[in-house]
């Protein structure tokens, strides 16, 4: 099974998907329209590229910082949370799911994902 399928089987996950770092394609499953999923994948990709650039700047200030290379990021809203690890994104209903479980699962599953953004 793919990570997207695994994520969708977890409590509270309303949608999940993958995007290409070069920005030319995405795929998703769950409760989003194609157009909204395209928009979500573009926003997730943009933030991922941004935090990777910022992580490299941070590395100059403090080599071997535990933040570098960035693995992902999370935005937590009042009802929904967006979790992104490498090139996989996931939208979670806060009332139904566990952010700790989802981040832990994504970190573990994506542990060997290359950090070269390719």
């Amino acid at each position: 099974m793919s990570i997207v399928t695994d994520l969708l089987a977890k409590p509270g996950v309303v949608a999940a998907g993958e995007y290409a770092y070069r920005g030319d394609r995405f795929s998703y499953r769950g409760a989003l329209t194609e157009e909204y999923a395209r928009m979500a994948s573009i926003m997730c990709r943009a933030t991922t590229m941004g935090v990777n650039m910022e992580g490299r700047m941070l590395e100059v200030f403090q080599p071997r910082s535990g933040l570098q290379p960035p693995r992902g990021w999370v935005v937590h809203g009042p009802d929904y949370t967006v979790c992104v690890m490498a090139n996989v994104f996931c939208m979670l209903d806060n009332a139904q799911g566990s952010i700790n479980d989802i981040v832990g699962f994504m970190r573990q599953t994506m542990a060997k994902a290359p950090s070269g953004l390719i």
Partner: protein
Amino acid sequence: MATLDQLMRLPGAMAAFEFRGSGELLDQRIAYPERINETTLDLLAHMCAANLSIATMQARGWEKMTSMKGFYPIQEFTLVGFDWSVVVSGLHREQFKGEGKTHLPPFMGVVLGNEKADYEAAFAILEEQEPAP
């Protein structure tokens, strides 16, 4: 309201910090000065301020365009690094603004080791309400 000392009691806490919306570091607690220093925290605070603002703009736009609710306002932004994570929030500022107060509290953040990180506990501390007067 959350304090730096409360945040430092989270499992795996390495540092806690307060910063302005512009990213300027205001105060900090550092558990391992040999691993994370004030200069790093200052850049990290600037990074987090920028990402929190971008995420807030995106959540606002997302809700307007999709009519899906529950994303805005962003309560916390978390960066998950290779070994550490940083969780930041400006939620108290929004509460103060909503109450019409003019002196707003700073943004707050905590750096956690990933192995022990409890993101939900960090969110709960950062979201603690100011007791009613």
